[in-house]
């Protein structure tokens, strides 16, 4: 029986299993989940592995409870996670909002399948991208990553924990059935080669402690229940002390802090990657599994003499407005590739502001987009 949190070595692994291993390597010791295809394997792996490393797994009664439990565990001082797919993600929206307003670090994985509703349970899609940004009520900023391979699913899960601990919010990993169920080589490095970030604890007099007083970098240090701070956490609008305050000014102040910690740190949070983009006349923009389609399409297009390049969004939220704006000045046209009917496409249109034509290669879900479709669009549209 394996007893190490970091399974250093080379493996042939599915994305879902790699995600679970990434979580354990990042220090996750609590998983509260609910079974759903195609994310179930993450819960199964966590159930298997957490018992050996002093962690706890619990299968909750639904996804609402799953998120409630990981928020509770996080305030108990333990890094926590859940994983789901579309229908469960819809149920999670309520407590994602609680996680945001209470500034609770945790990681929520969505292995996307085609919706709406029960949709295509066993087939991939990328149709929850806007829900990730706007699904819980009220204004907020969120961080969402999108892995394109099992290896990246492993690393992004560590990254998601680090970002959630640093910025104190639920971080979303927007994967999909294809990456989740795909088996590929996954290298798990030695534990000491993995960078781990953990929340800062408070210092100083406990009786003068203010739960939401900005600390280093504007982020408030976070105590755990039982540490003796006797703090109060509420989903109501609250002041620096964490006390409810029902007025416009406190709300504006709180909201500016909640959104500011993301908006003022875009350079630290946003991650993109590019492929043959430097001399490109046409940019393909994509994320997650559709990155693989896009990479192949770049090479196929270049073989035909079309100077295509690829910008990959590793983090999809916060959206890299500046990069897209700059790119619009460098290319003659763009193509968005995503397995939905045009969600991130709208964001790109917003940033491009009509300066160059932008076309969508997408469909309503159930399978990967063939690179030929992207090449066809490049040939016909430009």
């Amino acid at each position, binding site marked *: 029986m394996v007893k190490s949190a970091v399974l250093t070595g080379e493996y042939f692994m599915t994305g879902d299993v790699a995600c679970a291993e990434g979580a354990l390597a990042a220090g996750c010791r609590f998983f*509260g989940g609910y079974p759903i295809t195609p994310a179930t394997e993450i819960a199964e792996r966590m159930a298997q592995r957490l*018992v050996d490393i002093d962690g706890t797994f619990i299968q*909750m*009664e*639904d996804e609402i409870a799953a998120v409630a439990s990981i928020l509770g565990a996080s305030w108990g001082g333990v890094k*926590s996670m859940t994983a789901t797919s579309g229908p469960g993600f819809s149920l999670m929206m309520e407590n994602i909002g*609680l996680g945001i307003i209470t500034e609770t670090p945790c990681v929520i994985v969505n292995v996307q399948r085609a919706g709406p509703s029960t949709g295509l349970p066993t087939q991939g899609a990328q149709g929850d991208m806007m829900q990730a940004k706007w699904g819980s009520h009220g204004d907020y900023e969120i961080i969402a990553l999108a892995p394109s391979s099992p290896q990246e699913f492993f690393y992004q899960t560590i990254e998601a924990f680090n970002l959630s601990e640093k910025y104190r919010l639920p971080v979303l990993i927007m994967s999909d059935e294809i990456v989740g169920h795909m088996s590929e080589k996954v290298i798990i490095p030695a534990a000491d080669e993995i960078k781990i970030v953990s929340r800062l604890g408070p210092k100083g007099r406990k009786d003068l402690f203010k739960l939401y007083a900005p600390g280093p970098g504007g982020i408030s240090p976070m105590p755990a229940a*039982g540490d003796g701070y006797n703090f*109060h956490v509420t*989903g109501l609008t609250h002041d620096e002390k964490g006390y409810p305050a029902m007025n416009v000014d406190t709300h504006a102040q709180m909201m500016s802090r909640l959104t500011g910690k993301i908006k003022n740190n875009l350079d630290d949070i946003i991650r993109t990657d590019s492929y043959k983009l430097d001399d490109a006349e046409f940019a393909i923009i994509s994320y997650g599994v559709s990155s693989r389609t896009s990479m192949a399409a770049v090479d196929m297009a270049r073989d035909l003499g079309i100077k295509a390049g690829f910008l990959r969004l590793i983090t999809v939220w916060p959206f890299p407005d500046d990069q897209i704006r700059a790119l619009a000045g460098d290319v003659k046209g763009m193509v968005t590739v995503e397995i939905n009917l045009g969600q991130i496409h709208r964001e790109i249109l917003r940033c491009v502001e009509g300066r160059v034509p932008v076309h969508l290669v997408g469909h309503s879900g159930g399978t990967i987009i063939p690179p030929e479709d992207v090449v066809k669009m490049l040939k016909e549209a430009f």
Partner: protein
Amino acid sequence: MRYNSDNFMKKPEHPLNGLIRKDRIPHIWCSGCGIGTVFSSCLTSIKNSGLDLNKFAMVSGIGCSGRAAGYVKLDSFHTTHGRAIPFATGLKLANTDLNVIVFSGDGDLFAIGGNHFIHAARRNMDITVICVNNFIYGMTGGQVAATTPHSAISTTTPFGNPESPFNLPLLAYASGATYVARWTMLHVRDLTESIGEALSRKGFSFIEILSPCPINYGRRNKKLPMEILKMYQENTIIKNNADPAELDIDFERGVILGKFIDKDRPTYTENYDKICRSTQNV
């Protein structure tokens, strides 16, 4: 000690001062509301337990009773509507040294949060659930609850209630709770003792406390605050170990109070350690 006029003039300290966030007083509860009495009983039990106060946490949902977490000077969590129990579950499992108390109302715990309640009881999660049952949604202005009697008028049942109310102790018992009791907020001593007992028991403890909502239940149902208290005094009978199936609430027939269940059964954590952790088997 020398006589000191300052000390003489000073009001005596409230015995629960150390457990109340004085800077959040006045509270929002209406005159005649029973939540404050239940809250005091709860705090008295916590204090009397002699346990380290830093190892207590209170979790509430939404509603009038849900505001309790905001007034207690413990690590306290005012969560989303109905979700106090699953939040408390994660908190407890992350740190099993904590004594986790869920303090909330009947609407929160048994309508929107009903599913969480039965599952936490089934798992025998080691938490204490205190439910102030005022038979109505008070905070939103008096709508029908899962506990409202047929005879009652509410803003959403203006002609009377077509639904049958829950028998909460029966539900708790059937779901697997290991400690089940019911009191009214008038039975302060019994209640305080009972909460203390529940805190000392491992496993899922549940206490239902009948409590008046004079503004949003009493007013509409022609029941003055004092009449309700009289009813609590005269139309109740204490019958420990009563059959949970007999515990439907009917004040005309008489309402049974007491401790109904007090038994031992392995908690979720005990079972998890015993059954799941391979390190235990090596």
